[in-house]
């Protein structure tokens, strides 16, 4: 008889620019109240935001560790500036925490040591997954766009690493050198006044037909719809997925974690879990289109046109 290890739950890094105190209290609450197994912490999207969280970083890591959470420190996804490169290298070389690398410029410092490959590193197939595993990757969070068939093939061929799948939250779709928040506010990126902080769940982007479409988060673009794989858990278990990534949105993430845990443990039927999540994170349509290798469709009308400008 084979024993199956229970599916882990991993809280991804906060991708949005939350107020530092809110950010700290969020993690304190995750440490104190949530049933999550692992927590990734660190600024992934914009290096300009990093100084705001630096003060709270040690306390957050300590609180999470004390609560028995496995702590991952996430690296920046797009590294171009010299200070970004230095910081990425320092993080990788410090050796104090398990590092989740989101760019090759981080991985290159981690070879031979246990680390995690984050969802911003392109792992699309078993050849690449095995190569990273041989370098010391003990967990690989796959890019959100991978379909179930690819996930299963990678997990089957890479038993030496835990395979993680993006299971809740707005899927990151793109990252750029250009800041769209600054551009929308008619500001230069270097003098952005951190306007992205006004949108802790992303700034909605609608089509010309007033359909909800995307959200922007500084240099990052995400889907408007929330990825939610709570109805797909059987398939993910079947595919030997070891961990589910829950990506923080501006909602009660402790409740999101609890719902996933109860469904995974068989204490709650998936359909009820789905309804619970819809109540926890209301007004945002859900999607599992990437997992099912489908194009997304217009899911909900935009709110912009109802109460603001039609054109600029």
């Amino acid at each position, binding site marked *: 008889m084979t024993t199956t290890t229970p599916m882990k739950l991993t809280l991804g890094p906060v991708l949005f620019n939350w107020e530092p105190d809110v950010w700290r209290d969020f993690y304190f609450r995750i440490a104190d109240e949530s049933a999550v197994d692992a927590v990734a912490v660190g600024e992934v999207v914009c290096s300009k935001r990093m100084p705001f969280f630096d003060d709270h970083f040690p306390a957050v890591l300590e609180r999470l560790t004390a609560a028995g959470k496995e702590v991952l420190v996430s690296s920046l996804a*797009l590294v171009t500036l010299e200070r970004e490169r230095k910081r990425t290298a320092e993080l990788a070389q410090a050796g104090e925490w398990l590092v989740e690398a989101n760019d090759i410029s981080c991985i*290159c410092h981690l070879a031979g040591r246990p680390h995690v490959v984050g969802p911003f590193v392109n792992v699309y197939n078993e050849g690449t997954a095995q190569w990273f595993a041989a370098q010391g990757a003990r967990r690989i969070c796959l890019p959100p*766009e991978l379909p179930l068939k690819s996930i299963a093939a990678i997990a089957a061929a890479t038993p030496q690493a835990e395979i993680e799948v993006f299971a809740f939250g707005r899927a990151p779709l793109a990252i*750029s050198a250009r800041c769209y928040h600054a551009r929308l506010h008619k500001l230069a990126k270097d003098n952005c006044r951190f306007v992205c902080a006004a949108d802790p769940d992303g700034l909605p982007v609608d*089509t010309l037909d007033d359909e909800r479409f995307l959200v922007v988060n500084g240099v990052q673009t995400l889907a408007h719809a929330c990825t939610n794989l709570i109805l797909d858990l059987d398939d993910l278990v079947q595919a030997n997925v070891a961990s589910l990534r829950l990506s923080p949105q501006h909602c009660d993430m402790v409740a999101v974690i609890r719902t996933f845990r109860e469904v995974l443990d068989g204490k709650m039927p998936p359909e009820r879990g789905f309804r619970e999540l819809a109540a926890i994170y209301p007004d945002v349509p859900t999607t599992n289109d990437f997992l099912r290798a489908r*194009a*997304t469709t217009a899911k909900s009308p935009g709110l*912009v046109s109802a109460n603001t400008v039609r054109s600029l």
Partner: protein
Amino acid sequence: MELICPAGTPAALRTAVDAGADAAYCGFADATNARNFPGLNFSRRELAEGIAYAHRSDVKVLVAINTFPTAGAQALWHRAVDDAVAAGADALIIADVGLIDYAARTHPDQRLHLSVQAAASNPDAIGFYVRRFGVRRVVLPRVLTVSEIAAITRAIDCETEVFIFGGLCVMAEGRCSLSSHVTGQSPNMNGVCSPASHVTYREEGGTLVSRLGDFTINRFAKGEPAAYPTLCKGRFKTSLGSGYLFEDPVSLDAAAILPGLRAAGVTALKIEGRQRSRAYIEGVVRGFREQLDALDVGEKPPADRLATLTEGQSSTLGAYRKNWR
């Protein structure tokens, strides 16, 4: 500096060679390359013939195998590598770590270039590919300023190639799932961005409406220059106003900064557009050949005449200018 030119078809390759390219780049007619469009690309026989034609004029042929192999179906990509080597490709352009590893192990003498799709945007990332796989040249992502490029060329042990003309990715290349989200077809997995199969154009009383999948991407008023319905160059609405949120429908044109790129230590200049016609290849390659020849002898370069070939009929220096960000 070398002039690297696109070749979507054998005829385009011959046109590029004849118009003054130093190298042409092309791919096989399947998902192994990032311009997997209908009616485009090369069979094995066409590649061998194209390479023979190019080599007669001392022009190199680079074969792009720059998508990310599908899990469980890697054999297609491995065969593309083997066949390109067998055909005598001067270099392979690859993005996926596993595939570069395969190419480096299986064909240790083959020259390898790192595709822009690998998004290696700093000396550490580039150094990783150079040390681990012996990559000889990196195609830099279009997220860098000229001074950042200069710093990178100083810090690395391989050649650099940069884009100077054509379609412009606004997002970091190889890290964009916008097309995948809307069409289920992605540049990384299927070699297509905003594929024609999911595009519709409709004339509504002089207004051109372009749609991608289930979504309207743009409306062009009568007479207004049009553009491909790529998501990052569409018009959208936000609470702060509507319009071109990500980028206007423009093409990259770096003709004005060729001296700067040379001073930055760039080895090769790349023209985008394997999906474009012979007329485009002829015009753009010849135009840049003249520019480079003038630059080499210290003459004033001829005026840039390429505007009509550009998307939206206008051009940008993109990320090469810092304030683009």
